[in-house]
């Protein structure tokens, strides 16, 4: 593992040779120790959770004596937890669509046009990304707490959560896509106009395909943000629209069971499955060219 020291010490002429070697060995040990620690640090909560989800007992207690899939069965047998999972996925998909469409269009406007108040608009779009979830959730809850549209109460609806989650997801998509659009060869866009491609067709046929990787990646980020978010959702959902992380947070406050570990694994699995689908798509895309 520790095949390189953290900093090269090629020329030791100015330092006594022995000291230089001691330094190098010390640095190597330090590097190795740090590498192991950081891997352990990042892996621990994930491994603990994965292990606990296969526990047979009801208590969170190590060592795990009997392994089973009991809690997975329990999770899927509980309508409350399955509903929460469904709700989470619906909200995450909705957020993905809303924030990807709006973020991509806004980023294209920034790349393609000059207009007045550009820095101000930029700030307005980006600012929510840096706001604490508790502030955004509270604000939306207060402003839309008793607004109803066509007789349906907006508060507690999944649509409101999607829009609230878009406050984080949309600026992120916007930021990523602005950088991606800058890599588009403007001569290729001109070539399309030149051949008779109207702006909309050019955007759909030429621009979008050449930034497809960027769009897919930012859509994935939007999906992940929404799927995992629970502070805004806590303020904005009712029992009927509760998302999985919200339910997890509420049950953690009362009592932790291995069912929570199962829920964590399922949430993570949803993320990693979509990630690998995109990887497969990306590799096929690479092979095409």
């Amino acid at each position, binding site marked *: 593992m520790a095949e390189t020291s953290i900093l090269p010490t090629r020329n030791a002429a100015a330092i006594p040779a022995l000291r230089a070697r001691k330094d190098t060995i010390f640095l190597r040990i330090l590097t190795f120790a740090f590498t192991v620690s950081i891997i352990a640090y990042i892996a621990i909560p994930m491994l603990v959770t994965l292990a606990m989800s296969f526990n047979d007992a009801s208590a969170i207690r190590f060592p795990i004596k009997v392994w089973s899939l009991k809690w997975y069965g329990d999770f899927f047998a509980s309508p409350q937890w399955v509903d929460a999972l469904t709700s989470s996925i619906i909200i995450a998909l909705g957020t993905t669509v809303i924030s990807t469409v709006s973020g991509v269009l806004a980023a294209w406007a920034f790349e393609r046009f000059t207009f007045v108040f550009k820095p101000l608009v930029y700030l307005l779009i980006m600012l929510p990304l840096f706001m604490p979830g508790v502030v955004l959730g509270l604000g939306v809850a207060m402003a839309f707490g008793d607004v109803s549209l066509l007789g349906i109460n907006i508060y507690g609806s999944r649509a409101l959560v999607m829009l609230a989650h878009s406050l984080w997801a949309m600026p992120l998509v916007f930021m990523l896509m602005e950088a991606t659009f800058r890599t588009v060869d403007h*001569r290729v866009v001109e070539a399309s106009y*030149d051949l008779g491609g109207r702006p909309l067709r050019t955007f759909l046929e030429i621009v979008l395909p*050449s930034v497809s990787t960027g769009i897919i990646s930012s859509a994935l980020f939007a999906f992940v943000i929404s799927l995992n978010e629970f502070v805004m959702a806590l303020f904005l959902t009712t029992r009927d629209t509760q998302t999985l992380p919200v339910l997890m947070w509420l049950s953690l406050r009362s009592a932790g069971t291995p069912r929570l570990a199962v829920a964590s694994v399922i949430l993570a699995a949803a993320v990693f499955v979509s990630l690998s689908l995109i990887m497969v798509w990306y590799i096929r895309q690479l092979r095409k060219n």
Partner: protein
Amino acid sequence: MADMNALELDSVRRAYGGVVAVDNVSIDVKRGEFVTLLGPSGSGKTSTLRLIGGFERPDAGAIRINGIRIDHLPAYQRDTTTIFQSGALFPHKTVAENVAYGLRMRGVAKADIAPRVKQALEVVRLSGYEQRYPAQLSGGQKQRVALARAMVVRPAILLFDEPLSALDLSLRLQLRAEIKRLHEEIGFSAIYVTHDQGEAMAMSSRIAVMRGGRIEQIDRPEKVFGEPANEFVYTFIGESCCLKARIVAGGAADSDGEPIDLRLSNPPGDGAWRLYIRPSRMHLGRADMPNGLKARLDFTEFLGDVHRYHFKAAKLELFVDHPGAVAHRPGDLVDIGWQTADMIAYQ
């Protein structure tokens, strides 16, 4: 209607900020004519092309295609297609899809597209490459696809934006010949932008030499070369040596204040002159010619076909191309002679 111009630029002007890129440019391109815009970088030739293509709008003047004014139309509504310097192929589309693109945008019937694509690829000798992606093509092949993609829609005028300048020399010569062949076979109308005078000479029906956003001269290649309108055109097209000389009482007095040994059989009037001669029209060791100069040999370059001899006389530097090696050595004083008709004088 038969002799209607494919393209007319009428006093077109375009400025960026305070800089006038295209200054009162008027050009008529007849049907089937191949007109080259030739000039150094910054001369406004590419800006002119972009105005025709519709990527920029003129500040003043009119642009007509087949007699109809189009300068208010965006690029996608103009009957022009461009072959870009970079090719600008759509990287995610196959060769066939690239070529078909313009046809699809123009609403050509689906059944007609495939045969026209096939034919266009045959014309540029790329049959069998339909399913390749641009990344799988060489530089020359990419430019041929770009050519096919632009030609297949049969535009009123084809616009070439330095299409060969990114290629290496042998490929450049080969493609140049091919474009020329296609022009003769198909007879399309074209505007071709280049800074390479060899390309301009070889391909053009007419050349427009540009400088500072203006057209200095527009004429057939041999006229532009043989009868340049002014000093800029003369010096820009072909190589030349400049002899600066002050002439007093019908004889050469000095150059930049130093006396020189310059004979002129038919000197221009008194005053400070710049006399130009092509290096291939000067002859070594010929004191018997009507005009002559004694100069000291500085150094020699071997250029393949010829040897190039660099001389110094007073403050003048000049070079002479000579087909074979000569016995002179650096430091020798050599007679250089030329015919009066080969010299041109500007004040």
